[in-house]
């Protein structure tokens, strides 16, 4: 099966044209994405990268290649995160002013951009924290064209704090947002040990606690699948189990958080299989 997929990717991939595209957002920022136009009768797929990454992150890139090789239209945007024409991963220490809401608006903008070019159903796939961001967007007012959600290695926004401390930090951020001081804070967030952001920015992500993620996933109004690595060491203890409680979860044995190596094809198999279902 893997060999078959590989051959398909090699042969058909040659026919799929990769096209970098840009999208000027209402904020005047220009967002960039890779667009692979496929069969219009097949659902298009939007692939969203992980936290502070770009669409060229290997996991996303291999999925773009794999999915587009099956003739599906694929759009892999890079979130601006407040940087016009952003094309690099944003450092943890950068001054982060972006918020999760703005991320949702950018996803929505890309959905609409895609809808102009593909009027069929759209499946959204997020990798790592990108799954959280997609989940946050879907929890709001998602575009109806989105018919399915696939979360790969969805991660809780861990603060390495207990609940009380997390609550306390959130409280402090809310106070800071209200008071306007300090203008920039530096705190551990996700895999960043020194995440430098405005309180608004940081608070927008902190408010999506693991519990909120689980709750949001459980309340999704569309079919969803969470594909998790059997050896994902970036996840908190019991996270996959908790996720399984209310969601369909597919475990790829031996795969890590980034599904790299030979598990790249396992991931693709899983994704393509899920796509067939739509």
């Amino acid at each position, binding site marked *: 099966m893997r060999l078959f997929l590989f051959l398909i990717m090699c042969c058909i991939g040659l026919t799929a044209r990769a096209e970098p595209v840009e999208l000027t957002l209402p904020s*005047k*920022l*220009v967002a960039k994405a890779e667009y692979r136009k496929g069969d219009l009768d097949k659902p298009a797929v939007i692939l969203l990268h992980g936290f502070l990454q770009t669409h060229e992150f290997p996991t996303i890139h291999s999925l773009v290649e794999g999915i587009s090789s099956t003739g599906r239209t694929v759009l892999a945007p890079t979130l601006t995160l*407040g*940087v*016009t*024409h*952003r*094309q*690099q991963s*944003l*450092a943890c*220490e*950068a*001054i982060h*002013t972006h918020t999760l809401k703005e991320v949702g608006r950018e996803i929505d903008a890309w959905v609409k951009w895609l809808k102009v070019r593909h009027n069929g159903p759209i499946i959204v796939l997020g990798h790592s924290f990108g799954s959280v961001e997609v989940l946050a967007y879907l929890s709001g007012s998602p575009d109806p064209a989105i018919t399915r959600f696939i979360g790969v290695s969805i991660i809780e926004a861990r603060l390495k704090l207990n609940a009380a401390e997390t609550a306390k930090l959130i409280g402090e951020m809310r106070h800071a947002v209200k008071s306007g001081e300090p*203008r*920039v804070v530096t705190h551990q967030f996700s895999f960043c040990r020194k995440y*430098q952001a*405005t309180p608004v920015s940081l608070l927008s992500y902190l408010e999506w606690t693991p519990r909120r993620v689980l709750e949001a996933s459980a309340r999704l109004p569309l079919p969803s699948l969470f594909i998790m690595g059997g050896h994902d060491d970036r996840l908190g203890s019991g996270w996959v189990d908790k996720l399984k409680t209310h969601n369909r979860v597919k475990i790829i044995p031996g795969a890590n958080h980034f599904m790299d190596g030979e598990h790249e094809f396992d991931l693709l198999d899983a994704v393509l299989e899920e796509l067939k279902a739509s």
Partner: protein
Amino acid sequence: MKPQSIVHLAGLFLLAVAGFILLLGGYLWLEMERVSAEMRVREARSARTEVVEGLAEIERRAKSTAQALALWDETRQQLSFTEYYTLWRDDRVRDAGMVSDNVEGVALYDKQGHIVAPARPDRPMLASLPGQAPLALLQQKNGGSHFSIFLPVHADPDGRILLGYVGVKFNFAAELRRARAYQFADLAHLRVTLAEGSSVNLAQAIDHLLFSTRPNPDLAAFHDLFRASLVRLVIAILFLLFLAAWLLGRLLVRPLRAFSDEIDNLREPGGSLPRKPARAAPLAVLELENVRRSFNDYQVRLSELHSNLEQNSRDFYDQARRDALTGAFNRRAFDEDWKALGEDRRLGRVALLLFDCDHFKAINDTYGHQVGDRVIQTIAGDLHAALRAADRLYRLGGDEFATILPEADARRAEMVAERCIEHVLGQDFRQYGMSEPTTISIGIALSEGEGITLHELQKHADLAMYTAKRPGSRKLVFYSENMGGMAALVGNKEISAVFQAIENPDLIELHYQSVMRLPLATREYVEALTRIRFEGELIGPGAIFPIVQARNLDMEFDLAVLRALDRDLAQGRLPAGLGVSVNLSAPSIVNTKVVDALADLIHAYPGRKIVAEITETALITQIEIASSNIRRLREAGCLVALDDFGSGYSSLRYLASMPVDLVKFDISMVRLLDSGDRRQQLMMEEITRLVVTAGYQMVAEGVETRELLDKVISLGFSHAQGFYFDRPLAPA
């Protein structure tokens, strides 16, 4: 060009070499200085090139830094939302490692080139871009030099969407020093010559920089090493040169000078090369020693050759001055020794002895030259024996010898002369087949320091010797003043007269003396007596005949006399029918030409009685020829008279065999009749009786008195001659 001493030449050569080395050293020194100066210029160029490259490097690095910033997403973030620009500028940029700590400042500018936010006071940045970016500026501000790079920031990779500009400021000097490793440029005291507040494009910055060239330690070390080495080399070469000079002096100059001195010594009389060097040199040049050895050998051979030549020369000299026959010194040696005495100076005491063998010519002619030579050798040996060892014996002519006795007086000279005579008389000449005794005549001339010359002394000896040879004379004769009449023998005038008379018989003046027929004393013929009229003077026979005999002119002179007689007869100076006698010398009677001439005269005057008077000497010597000629003359009608009988070596054998008609007794014999000595008278009587008995007619010479005439008549003389009758007179 004057030759120079090898010391001077060697010294000059060494000085020239030393000068050349010093010049070479100086030239190398100057060349090193020139190379060093050129190296410094090159280093300065290299330093400038290094700084230019450093400027390019800092521009490249600055551009790289600025470019990284321009392409950094966060830079675009700040140009889009400037709310956190200062935080980003002051912290984030450095925390993210986008710029190094060496960056003095970072600033973003909007599309119009205005700075997004005022710069920090401690990190001032230009408020606006001074020109169109990209820009690289060198600024002089607040006493320091800085350079800034400004690049545009685009939103898209293609550079179509300009977002603004990024500027990065550096400490110029620090960056330039860091840009690269400088081998030549010394930027420790780098100074920018820009005016305060002004700026210039970085491309022109090199023209506004002052910096020094880093001292090249290698070059300096090499320079010092070269100079030290050059000095040491020159010192070493000069030392070697002095060593070479010393060696040259020891090996070449000194031996050569010594050799030259040795050769110079050869110029000195008696100088010669040493057979070996004066002392053995520890360092000797083989070739020079070979030359010295060869020269020594050559000199030895030359000396030997010279000695041989000297010996040969002495031999030749001696031979040239020796008489080969007798071993006595010859005429040449006599002349040289004579000159050595001082020919023209006044003599001191000296005796000159002249020896002459009596009748040697007759001996030679009679017994042959071999006997004559032996006689001469014997006489020479006798004279040698008689003389002292230091006295030299000279052979002056055929039978004439001489010796010189310095510091000898008359007594000693006479003693030597007598010893010589005795030695000769003591010799037995019969061993040579001779039957007659051989005697010598000695003429002695003395100089007692009275101031006579050598020439005069020689003349005196000649006169004495001729006197001694005269018949009846003592065989040892000292010169005396009364011999002046014989000076003609040696006088130039008389000799000249004799020679000219031979050439011109008209100079001969014949005087005639009567020969009387006894006992009636009638004039039967006259004897022609020879005189020579020369330069108005009449030269008598006493001067003529010694010269004739001494010069061996007998035959020539007799021919001249015969021509003179013929002249007188032809001219009728003698009475018709009067006979005439003529004297012929011994050499003439054996000479065909004389005999022929006399025969012609006889035939020319057939009626006139012609008498030929010959001396007994002629008969002694070559009696056969003489006898043959006499017979021929007698056959022609000529009478022959033996003249001067009794004055020589009269021999009864000769007397018995003489083909003569008349025997003419010498005056010394005739005067015996007046001597009063009875024995002599008896002897005379017996001789005359013997001659008469033999059939000869006798003629008495020197009859000067009647008494003597009577005596000769009584003895049977057929003819008489003398002053009693008449004196010799020239014909009328």
